[in-house]
């Protein structure tokens, strides 16, 4: 095929893509403005219900679903996703801290690294072209879905002795589990590797606005050997620090649109309350598979958009 013909076809393709984009914007503009925030409220309400039932934070579902199926730029979706994850972790934090399940001694060192990483991640995310972010987001969401599908947690990983860094920092503890009526003592291992992974988790949380619970728990539990309940509770505390620093970067960049943020936060808050109540009467395993299926669907969407665009 002649080179100039290829060029012409390429230009035609670009024009068609541009026309499609203009059409989509016009369609969105033609819809009453309040219809989108209302749909967003309904969507986040459902995400809020599914999050606690599926054992994932709202942020990891919010960003790919809203980014893929709503007309908002990913910059605003990621900023809102961080606030969604942040509000969820802040809602749970007081109870976990009062019951001593969230361990500050374990959380403070990785929080410093993850929050620094999330600032870098947020800056990278805001600087990258939308198509690259979409592509990376799609790949990340699919990887998270696979991780959720294959990873197994260990309630009490066996850690005969702490590593040198953990011993020097005095990380370890004792917690009382009301479910069993027992008191458990625990230690951690592979602290340097765990801390290095938290830098990466922070960068990804900031770049994609996903929250970080999906990665915090496996690293704390499987890599570092913290008991599962301590890992989940400590992850919640960690998430609030990681997401706060990235959220400020987006907020200062102007990536907060109240018509997107407010219905999302209210929807997630109300949905999560219902989700926690439903937890007692539903089968978490079934919901977990629904969440994983949703993540696969939500991960394919941005990949498709990036490759199509």
């Amino acid at each position, binding site marked *: 095929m002649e080179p100039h013909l290829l060029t012409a076809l390429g230009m035609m393709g670009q024009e068609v893509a541009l026309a499609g984009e203009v059409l989509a914007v016009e369609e969105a503009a033609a819809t009453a403005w309040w219809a989108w925030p209302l749909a967003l409220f309904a969507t986040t309400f459902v995400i809020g219900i599914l999050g606690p039932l599926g054992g994932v934070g709202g942020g990891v579902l919010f960003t790919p679903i809203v980014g893929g199926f709503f007309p908002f730029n990913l910059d605003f979706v990621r900023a809102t996703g961080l606030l969604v994850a942040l509000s969820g972790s802040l809602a749970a934090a007081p109870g976990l*801290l009062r019951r001593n399940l969230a361990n500050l001694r374990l959380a403070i060192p990785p929080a410093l690294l993850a929050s620094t990483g999330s600032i870098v991640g947020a800056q990278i995310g805001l600087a990258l072209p939308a198509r690259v972010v979409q592509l990376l987001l799609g790949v990340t969401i699919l990887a998270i879905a696979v991780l959720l599908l294959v990873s197994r947690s260990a309630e009490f990983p066996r850690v005969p002795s702490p590593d040198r860094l953990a011993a020097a920092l005095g990380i370890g503890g004792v917690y009382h589990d009301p479910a069993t*009526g027992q008191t458990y003592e625990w230690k*951690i291992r592979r602290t340097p590797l765990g801390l290095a992974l938290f830098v990466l988790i922070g960068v990804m949380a900031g770049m994609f606005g996903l929250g970080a619970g999906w990665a915090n728990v496996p690293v704390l539990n499987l890599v570092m050997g913290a008991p599962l309940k301590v890992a989940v509770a400590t992850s919640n505390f960690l998430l609030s620090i990681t997401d706060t620093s990235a959220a400020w970067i987006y907020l200062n960049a102007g990536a907060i649109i109240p018509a997107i943020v407010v219905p999302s936060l209210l929807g997630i808050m109300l949905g999560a309350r219902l989700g926690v109540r439903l937890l007692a009467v539903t089968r978490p395993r079934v919901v977990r598979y629904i969440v994983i299926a949703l993540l696969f669907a939500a991960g394919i969407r941005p990949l498709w958009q990036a490759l199509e665009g």
Partner: protein
Amino acid sequence: MADGRMPSQQRGAGAAGARLAAGRPLPAEVGVAPEQLAYANLIAVGSLLATVLLVLGLILYVTGLLAPVVPPETLPRVWHLKVQDYVAATGVPTGWGWLAYVGAGDFFNYLAISVLAGLTIVGYLVLLPGYLRRRDWVYGALVALEICVLVLAASGVLKGGGH
């Protein structure tokens, strides 16, 4: 306590996950440190305040009691733009510039969002004296560094973007 050194660890006792005898009185370290409780209470009150502000902001915004900087009906024409283009198209302030517009319907909501995003900074300020009092210099330094990182992020010096 959750954030104190474990006396049992210093003695090198027991394997991780070891179950202590049922019915035995809980060791002192299961108790919650006062600053951890203070942090928990602060987060609880702050989250409630943010929720109230959020609902109030929504009412003021939707009813039009406070006029917005960006009229909501224009949003569908700009919310697909990258943030840099959105800022240029709407003229909304960046950094802490929103404070000048806090009387506007849309920017009133920034109060709730700032409370949410600011809670952990105040929480860490609450934690710091506890570590310093115990002469736990390493954790005192880690907490102080975290405060610096969070304040730097909140300051607006690092706005991001530029694509």
